[in-house]
């Protein structure tokens, strides 16, 4: 199974991505998905997402490969947007398919937790006031990723 990895400026369509994983197959018992959305915290007008072309794709493939090693997946899709994203719009899609729900659900949670700490993306917040600031990494994200440590 080859994971689908994409970094793109445009929005994505969950139904279309789901159909790509299930088309022509009768061995999939469950699809799990996570979509991260842009919130309008504190008068936020837009998020501007920057990434490290080349390393990003490499990092996402490593994260997907780790999920495939841990769970019996029949499909795995990681899409992440870059550029300017306004509140209400999607930022990231994680989609997993497996014969059984637990593998799909757990791997989906693992993938978004790891993506947040292991993929080279950076968010800048732009406010209606004209002010802009880089988002700081959160300890809670490190803790979420750490709970998937082997033997933990």
């Amino acid at each position, binding site marked *: 199974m080859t994971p689908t990895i994409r970094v793109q400026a445009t929005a994505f369509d969950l139904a279309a991505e789901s159909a790509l994983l299930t088309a022509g197959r009768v061995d999939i018992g469950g699809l799990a998905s996570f979509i*991260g959305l842009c919130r309008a915290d504190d008068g936020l007008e837009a998020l501007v*997402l*920057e*990434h*490290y072309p*080349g*390393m990003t794709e*490499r*990092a996402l493939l490593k994260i997907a490969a780790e999920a495939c090693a841990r769970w019996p997946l029949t499909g795995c899709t990681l899409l*992440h947007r870059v550029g300017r994203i306004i509140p209400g719009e999607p*930022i*990231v899609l994680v989609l997993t398919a497996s014969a059984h729900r637990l593998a799909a659900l757990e791997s989906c949670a693992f993938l*978004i937790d790891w*993506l*947040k*700490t*292991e*993929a*080279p*993306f*950076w*968010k*800048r917040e732009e406010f209606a006031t004209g002010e802009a600031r*880089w*988002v*700081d*990494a959160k300890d809670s*994200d490190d803790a979420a990723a750490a709970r998937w440590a082997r033997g933990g």
Partner: protein
Amino acid sequence: MQLLYFAWVRQKVGLAEEQVSPPENVRDVAGLIEWLIARSPGHAAAFANPKQIRAAVNQDFCLFDHPVAAGDEVAFFPPVTGG
């Protein structure tokens, strides 16, 4: 050696990338940072608090004791905030 900077590190340095040839005594990421700090006030500002900096050598995250050599691609950036 190709250097890349991202997010506020790029803004503080004032460059997205640069080609450098550090002296032979620069052997690891920590040594490279020390050498870069002397390069310009922008570099000095970007690397003023190395605890806020993360690095990658040849597109893999690494610690500051990771070796660097001519021909490497070395990137500096803040802790990642995607997802």
